């Protein structure tokens, strides 16, 4: 469905070159849910922006159903935009406060076609119904809704063009716990009903495990581990994935947190460590780690781990 190969993105800033994304490759399977997970500044949002054509990579290709989006004609690119939609994190910043909901949802439709007034109203009522809002919501302004309802409006807008791929950038992290479940369930229902493919960006590991079918764990712009969610979470092979999972405080008073899985702090993408970027924090660091970038070793069906430890002990 969507295939990224060797995506690299650097930003030039006053303090030097930020190596935000370095040689990232992964494939999003059709009708699946791919999760990009990692800590702040790891480059996961930059990857989403590249897929959404909000940024251009300095090298690498993004293929959508086999076609390279960088070399698409204007018309093909317009068609691509029709099939790819996005839901962003902050429901306050993602809806223009000066437009009514009707106009907000109509916007993507009007960018691609010229339906009559009645047909447009009908489609808007339909997508509002899908996200569980009454048709009368269309006449109101965003500030008349709560955070959870705003996120529903954002989802309705994303659905307006009946896309095939939806990029969800932290879709629930700005919402309260009791509202999160509502929105997550809604997203799952929509996926099941319309056969959508999701790419979700999240930092909440429990959410990722619950929501995704495939996962790529990103550390400082590089994929540390990727594969189907179940084996990656059940049997994490990369020390970073292990550290992340060990660091999640569980809602269970008898769970003991591991404080030693990852020491120190994330390095700056301005000056990333040599070799494996995780090596300064890794408890298993050894000779090749600072010297060479580990390749992605296979560790089971579709499961890849970029760690030198796997060289001699493959799956």
């Amino acid at each position, binding site marked *: 469905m969507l295939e990224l190969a060797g995506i690299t993105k650097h930003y030039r800033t006053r303090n030097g070159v930020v190596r935000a994304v370095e040689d990232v490759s992964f494939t999003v399977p059709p009708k699946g849910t791919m999760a990009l997970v990692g*800590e702040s500044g790891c480059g996961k949002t930059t990857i989403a922006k590249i897929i959404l054509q909000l940024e251009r990579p300095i090298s690498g290709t993004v293929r959508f159903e086999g076609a390279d989006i960088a070399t698409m004609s204007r018309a093909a690119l317009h068609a691509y935009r029709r099939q790819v939609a996005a839901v962003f994190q902050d429901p306050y910043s993602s809806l223009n406060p000066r437009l009514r909901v009707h106009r907000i949802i109509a916007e993507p439709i009007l960018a691609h076609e010229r339906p009559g007034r009645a047909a447009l109203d009908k489609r808007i009522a339909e997508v509002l119904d899908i996200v569980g809002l009454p048709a009368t919501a269309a006449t109101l302004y965003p500030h008349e809704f*709560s955070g959870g309802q705003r996120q529903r409006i954002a989802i309705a807008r994303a659905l307006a063009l009946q896309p095939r791929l939806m990029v969800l950038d932290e879709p629930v992290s700005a919402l309260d716990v009791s509202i999160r479940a509502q929105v997550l*369930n809604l997203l799952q229902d929509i996926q099941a009903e319309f056969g959508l493919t999701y790419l979700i960006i999240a930092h909440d590991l*429990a959410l990722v495990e*619950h*929501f995704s079918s495939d996962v790529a764990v990103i550390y400082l712009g590089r994929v540390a581990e990727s594969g189907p969610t179940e084996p990656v979470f059940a049997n994490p092979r990369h020390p970073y994935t292990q550290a*992340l999972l060990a660091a999640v*405080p569980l809602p269970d008073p008898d769970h003991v947190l591991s*404080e030693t899985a990852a020491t120190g702090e994330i390095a700056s993408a301005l000056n990333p460590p040599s070799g494996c970027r995780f090596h300064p924090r890794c408890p298993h660091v050894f000779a090749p780690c600072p010297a060479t970038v580990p390749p992605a070793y296979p560790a089971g069906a579709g499961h890849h781990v970029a760690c030198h430890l796997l060289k001699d002990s493959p799956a």
Partner: protein
Amino acid sequence: MLLQVENLRMHLHLRRGVLQAVDGINLHVAEGETLGLVGESGSGKTLTGLSLLRLLPKGSGRIESGSIRLDGQELTTLPEAELARDIRGRRIAMIMQDPMTSLNPVFSIGDQVGGPLRNHDIARGTALRSAVVDVLKRVRIPSPEDRLGDYPHQFSGGQRQRIVAAMAIGCTPRLLVADEPTTALDVTIQVQIIALLRQIQHDQGVGIILITHDLGVAASLCRRIAVMYAGQIVETGPVRAIYRSPSHPYTQALLAAIPRLHSKRTRLAAIPGQPPSLIDPPSGCRFAARCPMRMDQCAAPPPTVDLGDGHSAACWKLAN
């Protein structure tokens, strides 16, 4: 008892009406104990924390009734000057969510960590310097002697939160109010700050009120939990009782609504609707509109039912 809060009411007098932000809460913290104040945004947990120090929104915030006693001393009637001199930063200290805004970017960290010590006349001159170095050591800032002249931007996010903690514990407070101290941090850094808070508590015997929306963080740090909803405490008890046998429907719903690591991919149990407005809230149980076990009785304020072992919940279902 280190801290005893009884029937505290703090209302915000806004132009739109009176917002009953904190409405009749009771809680207590023993020496060296961590109490988790858990709730969603707007539940009043942060304003409860600020009320303890009488740091209320200027002009609109007012403590309407109730008492706050620290080591038996009543704080609600204490004159402002005395509160500032003896209590704030001295016997009750606070750690805020965002380490970037808690630190002033134009002062060196030596200045800022030394600030409370200077203000409360605890140390001066060279004694001050060594006290600052000592407290920075306690929060595990490496080689603090060399870093006193450094500014906040020269530290990483996790280290900044350590520095904020150092400012808070410098005057060896009796009670530490930590408001979402790890929310702005990444998980691998969050673990380190959780460990730091545990260690501070262990070393100093300080009582901690941990204000958080994260049930995982609360479980990993707290001995007791108080669950807040719409300005009231709906359930309180030992951490195990709350997580193993939650009794209030809201607590139950909250625990069922979060995805858990290493559990089956089942559908989450969403809580329908949203919290009520605290301007003119429902007169009975405030959770009733969203509650799956709602009854006619819920239109009246629910009684607080003692479930033994310091575990109690405010629900009609339990009273019957």
